């Protein structure tokens, strides 16, 4: 089976990751045809899956820091457009290569080609995935590792192991999204995955040797489920989080939301008498209802000796995962102070006039603009600093260059949400406990002196988070929940960072314009595609109208009619009751009695 073969290649490739073999920055080129393949990673259901060059799982991108990466995409899906986002990469100076459709590019329609060309200057663990409505859970997601020849942990480990986590659906996204955003799903219950995967399969084995140290790189490439991860009998020493080296931190269990990454060092035992299970367990808190028969746990094994049995993992009473706020970046970057601008995002879930459930920032649910936001920023001259031209449904924020930005996110929803910022990592300066409500800038727990930095952080139910970063990366960057369902239901904000600077430095390759033409997407003017009057947004993409509140005209008419008919009815009853009895009525009573009389005796 192709699957197991590719998995085998996957692991062997990883274990042989070369160190120090390359010196100078190189250009690495990939030609990717995006194609449909069939896959059955959980052994329960074979389904059409989006693959690359007729293969799935997708290839590991193994890049060395400093390399220039060129990926030539040809969309051969035939029925769906797509795009690629390289999650966690800053794309400094190349915002047009970031990937989200509607923000930095047009979707690549079937038959079209598109080239991503960028240089990677960050080390660590990343991943890539399609960034268009529901594409990546259908298969288009894979790991991206950036080797660092100057890693502070170089020499402290002998080998690298990659473990990807993912949830997996048997149904295809277009159908699931239609059910999710529907009048029949007013609570916005997210479809629950059918399975969980490790390295896009199950029952993974990792051969280890005693007395050695391994660098485990972990990515949660899932669409929805957060996962707890632990290894029986071993401790993990976290050294990297979302591409940021940290001071070593010991953990017995880690928690990875969708899109989060960790690297940890693991030193194996000295004896080879037994093997050890490791488990990834999907967090049920995210699921409205756990379907019967769902196996949330995926097990793998550290195999010291392949002749020894692989133990069943022990059941846990509770999940007690490492709190990532305890991590300290290894570079010691201090808390950003003197905040220049605060982006407050109050998020909630609510229903709109079509009866379906949507997600909102500040009462606005994101709808993709007609013109990708980057193209609006580049084609509108001095008006590009006016936030209104980016449309009424994009949650747009225009940031000036080189300022300290604070994002305050208030979660007015009883769910956990992993938030991701494109183009930056941020200092995670505060995460409140559950049910603490909105952030109070006057009264809060002290911020850490050296806050953890990462690019995806989760907020607790009905709590808040505070994040800070410097606006030193001109571009269009999305800030969104990384639960793919919530991206589809609009939990997205658009940051337009230093638009005038962008106009000077960014130039769009012609193939990017071509996919817009191929897909008949306008690529100039304001969010509505108006190039003349930039403040005229007539015809822009809008969300459905809000639900009518209380009594509308039709409700009042109905109520008044009901009252009138009741009153009229009672008048008629009274009128009838007062009227004297008619002769026929009397006769019928007489008859009834007479009849009974003859019958009784």
């Amino acid at each position, binding site marked *: 089976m192709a699957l197991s073969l590719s998995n085998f290649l996957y692991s062997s490739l990883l274990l042989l990751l070369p160190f120090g073999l390359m010196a100078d920055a190189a250009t690495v080129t990939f030609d990717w045809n995006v194609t449909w393949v069939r896959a059955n990673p959980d052994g329960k259901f074979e389904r059409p899956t989006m693959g690359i060059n007729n293969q799935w799982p997708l290839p590991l991108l193994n890049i060395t820091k400093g390399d220039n990466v060129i990926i030539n995409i040809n969309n051969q899906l035939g029925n769906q457009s797509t795009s690629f986002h390289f999650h966690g990469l800053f794309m400094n100076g190349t915002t047009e290569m970031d990937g989200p459709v509607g923000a930095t590019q047009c979707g690549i329609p079937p038959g079209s080609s598109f080239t991503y060309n960028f240089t990677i200057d960050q080390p660590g663990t990343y991943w890539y995935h399609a960034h268009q409505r529901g594409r990546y859970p259908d298969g288009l997601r894979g790991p991206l590792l950036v080797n660092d020849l100057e890693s502070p942990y170089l020499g402290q480990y002998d080998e690298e192991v990659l473990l990807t986590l993912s949830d997996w659906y048997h149904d295809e996204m277009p159908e699931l999204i239609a059910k999710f955003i529907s*009048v*029949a*799903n*007013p*609570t916005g219950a997210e479809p629950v995955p059918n399975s969980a995967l490790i390295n896009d399969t199950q029952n993974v084995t990792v051969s280890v040797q005693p007395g050695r140290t391994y660098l485990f790189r972990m990515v949660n490439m899932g669409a929805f489920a957060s996962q707890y991860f632990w290894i029986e009998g071993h401790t993990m020493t976290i050294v990297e989080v979302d591409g940021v080296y940290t001071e070593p931190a010991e953990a017995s269990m880690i928690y990875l939301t969708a899109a989060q990454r960790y690297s940890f060092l693991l030193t194996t035992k000295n004896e080879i008498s037994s093997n050890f299970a490791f488990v990834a367990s999907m967090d049920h808190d995210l699921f409205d209802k756990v379907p019967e028969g769902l196996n949330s746990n995926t097990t793998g094994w550290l195999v010291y000796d392949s002749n020894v049995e692989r133990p069943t993992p022990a059941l846990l009473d509770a999940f007690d995962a490492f709190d990532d706020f305890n991590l300290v970046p290894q570079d010691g970057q201090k808390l950003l102070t003197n905040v220049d601008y605060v982006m407050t995002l109050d998020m909630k879930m*609510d*229903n709109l*006039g*079509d*009866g379906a*459930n949507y997600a909102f920032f500040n009462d606005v649910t994101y709808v993709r603009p007609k013109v990708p936001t980057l193209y609006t920023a580049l084609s509108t001259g001095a008006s590009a600093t006016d936030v209104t031209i980016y449309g009424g449904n994009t949650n747009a924020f225009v940031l000036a260059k080189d300022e300290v930005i604070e994002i305050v996110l208030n979660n007015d929803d009883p769910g956990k949400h992993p938030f991701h910022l494109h183009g930056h990592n941020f200092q995670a300066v505060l995460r409140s406990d559950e049910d603490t409500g909105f952030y109070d800038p006057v009264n809060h727990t002290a911020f850490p002196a050296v806050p953890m930095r990462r690019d995806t952080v989760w907020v607790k139910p009905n709590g808040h988070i505070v994040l800070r970063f410097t606006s030193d990366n001109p571009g269009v960057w999305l800030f969104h929940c990384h639960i793919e369902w919530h991206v589809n239901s609009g939990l997205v904000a658009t940051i337009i960072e230093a638009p005038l600077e962008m106009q000077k430095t960014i130039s769009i390759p012609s193939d990017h314009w071509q996919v817009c033409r191929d897909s008949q997407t306008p690529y100039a003017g304001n969010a509505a595609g108006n190039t003349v009057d930039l403040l005229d947004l007539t015809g822009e993409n809008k969300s459905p109208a809000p*639900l*009518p509140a*209380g*009594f*509308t005209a*039709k*409700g*009042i008419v*109905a*109520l008044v*009619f*009901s009252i009138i*008919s*009741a009153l*009229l*009815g*009672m008048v*008629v*009853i*009274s*009128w*009838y*009751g*007062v*009227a*004297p*009895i*008619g*002769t*026929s*009525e*009397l*006769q*019928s*009573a*007489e*008859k*009834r*009695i*007479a*009849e*009974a*009389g*003859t*019958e*009784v005796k």
Partner: protein
Amino acid sequence: MVNVFSVPVFFICFRESLETSIIVSVLLAFLKQTLGPEREPRVYKRLVRQVWWGIIIGIAISLCVGCGMIGAFYGLGKNHFSGTEDIWEGTFGLLAALIITAMGAALLRVSKLQDKWRVKLAQALEAKDNKKRSAGDRFKRWAEKYAMFLLPFITVLREGLEAVVFIGGVGLATPASAFPLAVMCGIGAGCLVGYLVYRGGNVAKLQLFLIISTCFLYLVAAGLFSKAVWFLENNTWNHVVGGDAAETGAGPGSYDIRQSVWHINFGSPLLNGGGGWGVFNSILGWQNSATYGSVLAYNLYWVAVICGFLAMRYNEAKGHWPLMKPKAKRISESDAASDTSSQQGEVIAETYEPKKVSTDFDAARSSARQLDA
């Protein structure tokens, strides 16, 4: 306070007992005024006993079913009943609305008779059934004879089951100690209102009392009819949503926007007894979320009632139904909406033929057509 007295439980018991006790008191007051212990004690006693038996049997059945349901809920951990709750609410509601409608008109008409006629009519109800009658006619007679049992029975059964289901739902989050006082107070308050109605009914002039109480009964029936439609629609919506929509509260998602005429996010009668809104719902059929179906049902019900009473009055005055030609002389036709007594009275007085008497309204009408022809 919360541990000894559950306000939701109070409101549930109050509203459920209120409707029952009003209907029962109207019936009892009616019996007392028309027959009274002194006028026709035998029939009076029998009919009063019917009312009480209706209540007792209704309570007994709803308690048994309710205990079974709650037992099943705790025993099997699954609310088997909730899936069909809306269906029986709707069905029972329709049934109760029809019975109240039929009886309301009948009571009002009886009140117009003179005392002696009423007593005789009551005695006539006692008469043994004629075996030669048609099955349909015999059922009518039977329903007439036991109407005083049927109405309280159906009402109590419906209200009792509803109370058990609602309390079962609330009860999961309420300490057991909060129940007894709340249940007793709720039922007590409901009975008190009923008792006041009964006393008022005994004091007032019969016709006035019956006009007021009939208006009231029809308000209840209109509400029931509308609620029945609402429940059946809600059942459909629950199937669409795949669960009990009311669990989402009173806000978005608890109703089908496509059917909505109005919706306000408070005053849902389904949540925690609904408080005052629950009473409003119970008596007048209020919904915080009105649908096309429920609004149309309410208005069409009243249109039907208005037409019915107008037609009855027309028939009483003119001796024939509107839109139909008068019958040949000496054959007068009485109304049909009420019952069986639509006969050719004058004919009977002279040439009494048992077989012919058994014709019901439709037969009479067809004979009228024949005569017309």
